[in-house]
């Protein structure tokens, strides 16, 4: 990634005033990146940015409250930081944000499908528009347009929206603003009973591992999550689709107007349940009702975190 050195320099300059900087480095094999906690100068050298940096590091921020934290963000990650700031869950003076222009991140499920059972990954390189993976002695060339995450094709905010240090040139979004939710059309056009059957089938596959929740930067109930709470005892531990679905619905409701569409829930899901779809649909409704997008403007008041006697687009009097 061409701005990598610039980013390292800027972190090096800021590190003395910070307890930790969260970034990415190469993971257990060259195809996977992993969150990287930079505490010392030498940690900086291992930093890597690029299409493998799938994780939204903002998820770590509320847990580091009270510490001086630097964080490297993609566009979508920066929205989570903004939303956390709006909700008073982190303090602006405690966070130093390093932004860069993101050209999209890969979907490892797509990569896995494309590679098949290729064996151990020896190297991985990003050439222009192509991901070159060396595995099991052969070289696989994957077109990025085939392996990027779906969310990147409808991305509105590739550049960090809030950054103390921004490296590189800002790039323009992949689709026009009014097309941001076009990917929902196919789902919305399904008849109601088909939609119901669709979710019934998807939710039935859930293994209740709650990786979706753990990865979500906006999941802030923490110790009081309905999944584990016994007081109130919201959910049973039975293996039935009803309880699994109930959890996902409440998760989606808790995120209405707050979800920054980073897609971590879906990425983390070992069963590849299309969880982002549910949340994007909620966000679309919120956008139509309140002209509001979560995590875009740090000074905005989230519509569901305010009280108005009369909403502009909810004509209660005409009901």
């Amino acid at each position, binding site marked *: 990634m061409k701005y990598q050195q610039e980013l390292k320099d800027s972190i090096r300059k800021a590190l003395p005033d910070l307890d930790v900087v969260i970034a990415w480095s190469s993971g257990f094999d060259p195809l996977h990146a992993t969150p990287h906690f930079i505490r010392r100068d030498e940690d900086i050298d291992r930093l890597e940015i690029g299409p493998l940096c799938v994780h939204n590091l903002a998820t770590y921020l509320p847990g580091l409250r009270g510490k001086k934290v630097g964080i490297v963000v993609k566009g979508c990650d920066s929205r989570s930081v903004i939303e956390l700031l709006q*909700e*008073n*869950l982190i303090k602006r003076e405690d966070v130093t944000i390093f932004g860069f222009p993101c050209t999209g991140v890969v979907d490892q499920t797509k990569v896995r499908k494309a590679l098949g059972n290729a064996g151990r990954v020896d190297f991985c390189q990003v050439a222009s528009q192509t991901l070159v993976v060396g595995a099991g002695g052969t070289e696989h060339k994957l077109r990025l347009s085939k392996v990027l995450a779906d969310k990147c094709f409808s991305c509105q905010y590739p550049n960090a929206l809030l950054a103390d240090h921004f490296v590189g040139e800002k790039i323009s979004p992949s689709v026009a603003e009014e097309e941001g939710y076009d990917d929902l059309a196919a789902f919305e056009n399904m008849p109601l009973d088909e939609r119901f059957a669709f979710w019934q089938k998807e939710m039935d596959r859930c293994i209740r591992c709650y990786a979706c929740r753990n990865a979500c930067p906006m999941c*802030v*109930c*923490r*110790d*009081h999550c309905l999944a584990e*709470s016994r*007081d*109130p*005892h*919201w959910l049973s531990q039975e293996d039935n689709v*009803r309880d699994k679905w109930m959890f996902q619905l409440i998760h989606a409701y*808790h995120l209405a107007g707050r979800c920054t569409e980073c897609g971590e829930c879906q990425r983390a899901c070992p069963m590849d349940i299309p969880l982002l779809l549910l949340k994007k649909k909620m966000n679309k409704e919120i956008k139509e009702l309140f002209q509001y997008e979560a995590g875009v403007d740090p000074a905005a*008041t989230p519509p*569901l*975190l*305010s*009280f108005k*006697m*009369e909403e502009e687009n909810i004509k209660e*009097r005409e009901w």
Partner: protein
Amino acid sequence: MKIGVFVCHCGSNIEGTVDTAAVAAAAREFPGVAFATDTMYTCSEPGQEEIVTAIKEQQLDGVVVASCTPRMHEQTFRRTVERAGLNRYLFEMANIREHVSWIGKDREANTNKAIDLVRMSAAKLLHNRPLLSKKFEINKRVLIIGGGVAGIQAALDCAEGGLQVVLVEKTSSIGGKMAKLDKTFPTVDCSSCILGPRMVDVAQHPNITLHAYSEIDEVSGYVGNFEVKVKKKATYVDWKKCTGCGVCMTKCPSRKATDYFNEGIGKTTAINIPFPQAIPKKAKIDADFCMKLQKGKCGICEKICPTGCIDYSQQDEYVTEKVGAIIAATGFDLFDWTVYGEYGAGRYPDVITSLQYERMLSASGPTGGHIKRPSDGREPKNVVFIQCVGSRDKSVGRPYCTGFCCMYTAKQAILTKDHLPESRSYVFYMDIRATGKNYDEFTRRAMEEYDAKYIRGRVSMIYPKGDRLLVRGADTLMGTQVELDADLVVLAVGAQAAAGANQLAEKLRISYDSYGFYMEGHPKLKPVETNTAGVYLAGSCQGPKDIPSSVSQGSAAAAKVLGLFSKDKLESDPQVSMVDIKRCIGCGKCMKTCPFGAIKEIDFRGMKKAEVIETICQGCGICTSTCPQGAVQLQHFTDNQILSEVNALCQF
């Protein structure tokens, strides 16, 4: 917990379509239920005694009554269990009348639903905790909104009862609609002669503070301790200096200002005192018509005013009044009759409203009490009255009867004959509604002694014929069509909710019906109370009313306020939100969403936490659904309690 379940027959109201014995039998099987029975009238004295006895004999520590709506008898039964030594919140009510027996005929289905509702109540009761009220101080001042006859009556009664009264009036003088009337039915006594002295009493009473030309901007607080922000609109006249001499009115060159008091019959000056008996008798400038304020040139009133009270730079002013109770007496407005194409939709100058006619009849009105056609000033010969204009008409969304138009039309027919003995009045009516004391006799007098011709039927068309109007209508008693040559047509325009009534209701947190009239606490038993503690109603804001009824309600509301203030302290409702300080992370979301400002931030050992101000909290529950941690819980409606109800209902 040992729960007792009492299933009420309510005579045949419930028993008619619900097998109450089966409900009681089913209830005996529910967890925690130790005793269940069905009774004829649970709310009656023997019914309540049965509960008290059962609590004592069976050592019950919780009671479910399955009967009517909690709005009806929750307080009754809470007192009953309290009498037997239980906390009043160890009681639950299942509504099996309004929610079951009255809405379905299928006995089996109804019985099953009643069982479900009782199961829910019993399940919730297992999670109920004793709650205790707190006592708080009250501010024994009362705010009355609206200075019409109802508001005046309420103000005088409260002031006489020793309370400090704040009266807020939207226009620059109190008096309301009644001040515009010439005479009042059924005695035909002069309206301003009976109202005038009352208005003067308001002005002179040491206990009454009058804010005229003012509106309610914000209301916060709760029963006993409201804080009301009153906006005193700019009059451009320093009322402390103005003596009401009226010199300014004689010299003001802008003479085309809308005369609101005279209902647009004639014009007035930009600076004006609306009528000679106005209280307070102070001038105000209508900024829309003032040359000085519009164009910066003129300033004559400033030069001529003997006390130097004109101030063109005056701004709206805000005052905050602290009161313990509020009476809304905001009255009504006239229906906009121009939606009726058949009456000319406002094109014909000689088709006027009853209130305009009233101003014309009044000796202090713009015509000096002479009946003149607005078009040419000629005295009319034939005057046609049309009743039910914007009343009892679904097609314009006004299906209700305004109630007093029949009477004032009869009065106006009588007065017409008095003013113009040569004239003849014709009244198109649907039905005569004259149900008050001496009312029917009065309408008979109009017909028999004053020769008013009453025609039962509707008017289908009014159109000009020469310089007169041709009124075509039906005579449904004769089964014929009638055509009348009219010189003047007077429309008995119905009443509708006052402009801005909805907005005020929302500030006061009271509800209103689909027409915008304020909802009383109970249609029969709480006619002047609202469901918001400390807010009362008087007069036509609750529904169209004639003067005697408005005055009665003014007095009734005053009696309620005096009753409320007879105590020195009130008890707070413990059904409010509470913050679990261990769970609270101090994110402040609850504070942002609270519509009442009832949550404040506190510092707890260096950490930010939320705290509910119990007396301000209204128990709406928005904070509880906002709090991500579930740290805020609404007492008596905790997540656990609601979940136990849902689980009792949704059994798989």
